[in-house]
């Protein structure tokens, strides 16, 4: 038994750190650290920098342009990126649809889509949830009817993250309404420019435009945009979910957030005393840090167990719950560290191009907004309650 990283892994960590020092634009890291909203260009800029180094598609097999890194290396990479303030990668293209195309797609699909993803020419969004299909995803109703060499798609998707930036959407659609729930679903790639598609913003409680509704009105999609077999889309969906859940513990993100929390708590003072020197507040930070340490150890155990390419099982459900709760708890303390200074809702200060003088400190505007935004963590990717159902069923066999 050994909790230490190997010398090779430590060397890899140094290599990643050096790369980040030289290549991560300082302004971008600052925006991330301060919890500002990021523009499409911010994301794409970072994607291109990574791609130039060959470090963008870390989860792809090497023959498609992946890195061939071990799960431990990927973990180290994520952790270093988060610590340096790199933007969290938008997963829909590179880490969600791409693995599905690689696993289930035709050669033509691979040849066309994968390079476009690598070069950030396509921005993908995810057409899964519907107004009537959230946790019960398999009850989705968006119809795709065969009409010659096209599908005719009608229906509505929702909670489409960053759909306003996207030129493509991957969708779960119902191709056989008479089949049982999970059967009769297909996985379709759709061009957002196709006539009949309307994107409407949903403004979330923090005032941000991050999610959308997407309407499909007689949208004609070529049949060659089907991935895998017709009516076997649920297989793709499940495969994608395992990719979505991996890394959801977000250890690196939480560590970076905790470091930021400590900075805020050191800078904010009450009667001249830093918040972090208030024994009660300090203990709350300590408690979170200990819990994060425990979740990190659990993550490392799972990484070590899956090092040889195994797919993490239901343990990833536990980590999703614990990781999201910690992340939420950190923003809770950030907000509390500010006391009344958390109240002003300063939207311009949250914008990616804000260069003015902040009302208070540069870190003051974001925590309350972040706190509300991150309520999503326990809702998306299979709500934490759904994760508990999974644990009850698959681990506990109840």
């Amino acid at each position: 038994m050994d909790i230490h990283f190997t010398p090779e892994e430590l060397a890899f960590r140094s290599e990643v750190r050096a790369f980040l020092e030289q290549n991560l634009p300082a302004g971008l890291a600052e925006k991330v650290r301060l919890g500002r909203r990021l523009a499409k260009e911010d994301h794409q800029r970072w994607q291109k920098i990574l791609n130039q180094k060959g470090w963008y598609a870390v989860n792809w097999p090497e023959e498609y342009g992946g890195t061939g890194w071990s799960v431990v290396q990927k973990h180290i990479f994520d952790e270093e990126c988060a610590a340096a303030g790199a933007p969290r990668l938008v997963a829909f293209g590179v880490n969600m649809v791409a693995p599905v195309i690689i696993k289930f797609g035709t050669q033509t699909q691979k040849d066309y889509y994968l390079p476009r993803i690598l070069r950030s020419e396509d921005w993908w969004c995810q057409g899964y949830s519907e107004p009537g299909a959230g946790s019960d995803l398999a009850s989705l109703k968006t119809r795709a009817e065969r009409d010659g060499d096209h599908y005719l798609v009608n229906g509505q998707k929702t909670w489409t993250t960053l759909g306003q930036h996207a030129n493509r959407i991957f969708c779960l659609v119902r191709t056989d309404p008479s089949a049982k729930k999970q059967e009769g679903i297909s996985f379709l790639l759709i061009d957002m420019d196709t006539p009949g598609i309307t994107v409407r913003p949903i403004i979330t409680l923090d005032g941000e435009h991050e999610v959308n509704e997407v309407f499909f009105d007689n949208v004609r999609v070529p049949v060659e945009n089907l991935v895998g077999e017709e009516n076997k889309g649920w297989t793709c969906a499940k495969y994608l979910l395992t990719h979505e859940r991996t890394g959801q513990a977000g250890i690196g993100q939480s560590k970076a957030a905790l470091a930021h929390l400590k900075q805020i708590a050191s800078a904010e003072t009450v009667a001249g005393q830093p918040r972090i020197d208030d024994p009660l507040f300090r203990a709350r930070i300590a408690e979170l840090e200990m819990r994060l340490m425990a979740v990190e150890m659990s993550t490392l155990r799972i990484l070590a167990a899956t090092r040889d390419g195994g797919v993490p099982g239901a343990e990833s459900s536990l980590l999703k719950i614990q990781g999201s709760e910690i992340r939420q708890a950190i923003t809770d303390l950030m907000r509390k560290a500010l006391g009344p200074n958390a109240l002003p809702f300063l939207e311009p200060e949250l914008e990616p191009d804000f260069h003015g003088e902040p009302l208070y400190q540069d870190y003051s505007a974001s925590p309350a907004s972040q706190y509300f935004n991150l309520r999503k963590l326990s809702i998306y990717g299979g709500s934490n309650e759904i994760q508990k159902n999974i644990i009850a069923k698959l681990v506990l066999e109840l």
Partner: protein
Amino acid sequence: MNFELNEEQQMLADTVERLVRNTYSFEQREVFYQSPRGYSPEFWRQLSELGITSVPIAAEYEGFGGTGVENMLVMKELGRGLCLEPYLHSQIYAAGLVEQLGSAEQRQSILPAVAAGERLLTVADEEAGSHYHPEAIECQAVPCERGWRLSGHKRVVIGGELAHIILVTARMSDGEGVSLFLLDPAAEGVSRTGYPCIDGPRACDLALADVYVEADSLLGPAGKAAPALAYQRGRAVAAQCAEAVGSMEEAFRLTLDYLKTRQQFGSPIGRFQALQHRMAEMRGELELARSMTILAACVADDPDSESRSRRLAAAKFTVARASQLIAEQSVQLHGGIGMTWEYSLAHHAKRLVMLTHQFGDDDFHLGQYSALLEVPRQASQQVA
């Protein structure tokens, strides 16, 4: 990074597991508990025959020379069986103090017999007003001709009725700091009041009325035992975490079985989502406790450092919280039957809760961690 046991470690774990399973049924434990000694000398003999009592002791004192990982493996199984023997206090905590502080002569004269399971040790470090702070004591050592005279009251000395040597903490009347003395419990002026603890093992209070101890009974330099006490309490904490994990695993297993068999409203109660989610939460906390127990085992023998202290405090904090959750919820999920003396689950619940009353509870370790919290511009980057 590797969390697998090697072959030798797996054999050790299997050996203890088998022995505990074969000799420590809950009914047997009840017999041991009711017996005058309150534990099983026969089980202790078997532990020593199999070399298990020697595991934590260094090879040069005829021990097995195990690390925190080996201690973890043994303690986990002793926890699973709710064993009553003072393994932790004698073989790990007290023997560790002798090894760290003792002179070559003291070590040679004590440790081989401890490793062989022939002599039991324990530590008397708690007093009315100490509450996990070994330096907050009043017991006094007054120098006298060729030795010292000890006076004071020690509390809840686990295994203290049976110990052949008790390591007693005392303040020097003529100086600063805490010292440790090797006390023969048969010495004149020593009186012991024994009792069972609410979670099973027996302990005693110790009244010291001007007890004479010889000069060579001082363990380590006078007034300077505090760092060794802190260090060895860290090793004890790591071992205790493992004991708790063994007990938690068993309580969880019993509860899961119960949910699958107990029928109410026409179905097994494990079909109800409220109970499923609670079990999922308990499983999550158990997993974190396991992870931190492994971390504690891996750092227990590292040189003293703030990082080691932080990790050990975090381990005990995590395990104490998980222990209490699983204790309380296992009883709750069982309903009335979980409240009965005749069912082992109730005893796991008691053990899991009361474990936190030795070597510091969750709040104590939260305080320790908080005091050591790093407050730089950048948080610590990695666990390992």
